[in-house]
């Protein structure tokens, strides 16, 4: 493996025609929200820039990110990126196993110290010195730190690596933490979702390895091109929301007419992702299109926010008891009203007895 080979050369070695390569460049440029002229720039970059290797690590996770990735709606994109990643290291997908596989990591560090992109799927558990996730005889957290020390940038795949996800849900027995809680000295791109959309994954990765820089990120480190708007903002059922037409139950007339799913718990108004535009499985569908609300899988701690079928969260102030803000607030307001009424009654009584004692003392 020559250090200076370009991505284009790697693709050609994998039997991808130039025609297919150019198609891939156009689609990716469009997916990244760039103008038509960028397809050529992208092709040029991939033809001339030395290939940036990608190392793909797996921590505590369900591998749904990989499953999503290899089903990339545009199969070409998946194949292309996948070929160039599996070249280096992905313990789920590569042929090598055991010591042979682990050796590849050290080889990559030797050859590409400070140049490779570290893609992390899943997250490290910290309890019991990280013993809940052991790979090649060492805790994953050690492996992650070791590989992160020599990488250029990190991509945190999915909600596990970005936020913590299911394994970090309360009470989080293994103390699983997102990547940014462990690695603090490298730039981290968060690509949340459970899993993230395949085209989003390929798009982010292509941008990073083609242009050799991070995509523009929001405050929380998510690429703006895919995570700057809520599902709600681009939802095709949004006119029903604005009209005030809601599904009240999943078997009612509104559900059949395709009304807004807000009242049956759709988290679209609080979830940042590209589902309502990119959609899933080659643009076939996405949750709201299939008649089910968004569960907010790309958001922080989405497992601990109460029911998927309730529009309001039960998180935060209710440690043990499940309660929504409206329930807590209603009880508080009711208590205030009762308190005020009782105080008013007591005031009258106090006033009367005060008068009596005054009269008796006078008399």
């Amino acid at each position, binding site marked *: 493996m020559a250090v200076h080979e370009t991505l284009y050369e790697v693709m050609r070695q994998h039997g991808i025609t130039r025609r297919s390569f150019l198609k891939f460049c156009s689609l990716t440029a469009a997916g990244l929200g760039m103008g038509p002229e960028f397809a050529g720039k992208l092709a040029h970059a991939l033809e001339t820039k030395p290939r940036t290797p990608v190392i793909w690590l797996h921590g505590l996770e369900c591998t749904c990110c990989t499953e999503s990735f290899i089903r990339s709606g545009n199969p070409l994109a998946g194949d292309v990126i996948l070929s160039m990643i599996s070249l280096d290291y992905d313990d789920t997908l590569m042929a090598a196993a055991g010591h042979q596989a682990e050796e590849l990591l050290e080889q990559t560090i030797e050859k590409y110290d400070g140049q490779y992109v570290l893609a992390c799927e899943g997250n490290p558990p910290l309890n019991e010195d990280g013993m809940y996730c052991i790979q090649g005889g060492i805790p994953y957290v050690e492996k992650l730190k070791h590989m992160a020390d020599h990488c250029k940038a990190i991509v945190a795949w999915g909600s596990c690596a970005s936020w913590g996800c299911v394994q970090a849900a309360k009470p989080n027995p293994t103390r699983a933490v997102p990547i940014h809680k462990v690695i603090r000295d490298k730039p981290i791109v968060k690509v949340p979702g459970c899993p993230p959309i395949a085209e989003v994954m390929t798009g982010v990765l292509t941008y990073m390895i083609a242009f050799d820089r991070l995509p523009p990120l*929001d*405050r*929380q480190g998510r690429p*703006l091109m895919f995570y*700057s*708007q*809520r599902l709600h*903002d681009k939802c095709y059922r949004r*006119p*029903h*929301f*604005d*009209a*005030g*037409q*809601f*599904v*009240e139950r999943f078997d009612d*007339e*509104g559900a059949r007419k395709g*009304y807004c799913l*807000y*009242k049956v718990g759709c*988290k679209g*108004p*609080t979830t940042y992702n590209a589902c309502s535009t990119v959609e899933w499985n080659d643009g076939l569908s996405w949750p709201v299109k299939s008649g089910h609300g968004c569960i*907010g899988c790309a*958001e*922080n*701690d989405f497992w601990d*926010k109460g029911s998927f079928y309730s*529009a*309001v*969260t039960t*998180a*935060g*102030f209710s440690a043990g008891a499940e309660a*929504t*803000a*409206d329930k*807590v*607030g*209603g009880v*508080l*307001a009711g208590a*205030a*009203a009762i*308190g*005020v009424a009782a*105080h*008013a009654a*007591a*005031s009258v009584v*106090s*006033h009367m007895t*005060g*008068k009596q*004692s*005054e009269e008796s003392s006078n008399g």
Partner: protein
Amino acid sequence: MSSTTAASGPGTSSLKPVYVYEAPVRIWHWTHAISIIVLSITGYLIANPLPALHGEASNHFMMGYIRMIHFIAGYVFAIGFAVRIYWAFVGNRFSRELFIPPVWSREWRGHLMHKIKFNLFLTRKMEKTVAHNPLAQVAMWFFNVLVGLFMVVSGFALYGEGLGVGSWADRWFGWLIPMMGSSMEVKMWHTLGMWLLIVFAIIHIYMAVRSDIMGRESCVSTIIGGWRYWKDDQP
């Protein structure tokens, strides 16, 4: 011991009335009150929308109007709040009481304890207050200043989500969302903030009416006309 309260009837005091609430303060009080009512109703309906309307979506704009009214009332609330803060700098000395309860003053703390005892019927002695009594000051500082400020910040943070990344509301207030976890959390606390303001309103209105009836000075009329009248000549 209650002889002081019954010493004379209302309006019979020879003590000079005090001009407490200047016009901007009074205007703010009432626009603030109205905006809280409007914001609470529309805010509740945003979290818990009315039953579905039927017909074509293009014929209706129910949620759109409810949200629009909420946003307009939110602007009234926020701008009013900003003007009120400004007035604390240029207004009379009573205009600052809302923002700075003088907790460092031993005398003030004594009055505060007395007022708490008074409200718990542990003493009948009723103290006169020129502007806000110490307990009201503490309540207003927490509910009006702290909760009110939180409602402005969280409200604009959520508003910025609709305006989009890079909008003024996102740039100025959007930091709150990652700070609190996610936009669901901000929404939840924003809703709870509404309930706290409702709790405050219930107690505030009760206390104002109560002290108007049973107290030794005018109260409800003061926030309408600005002048504090005394009902007796006792100190």
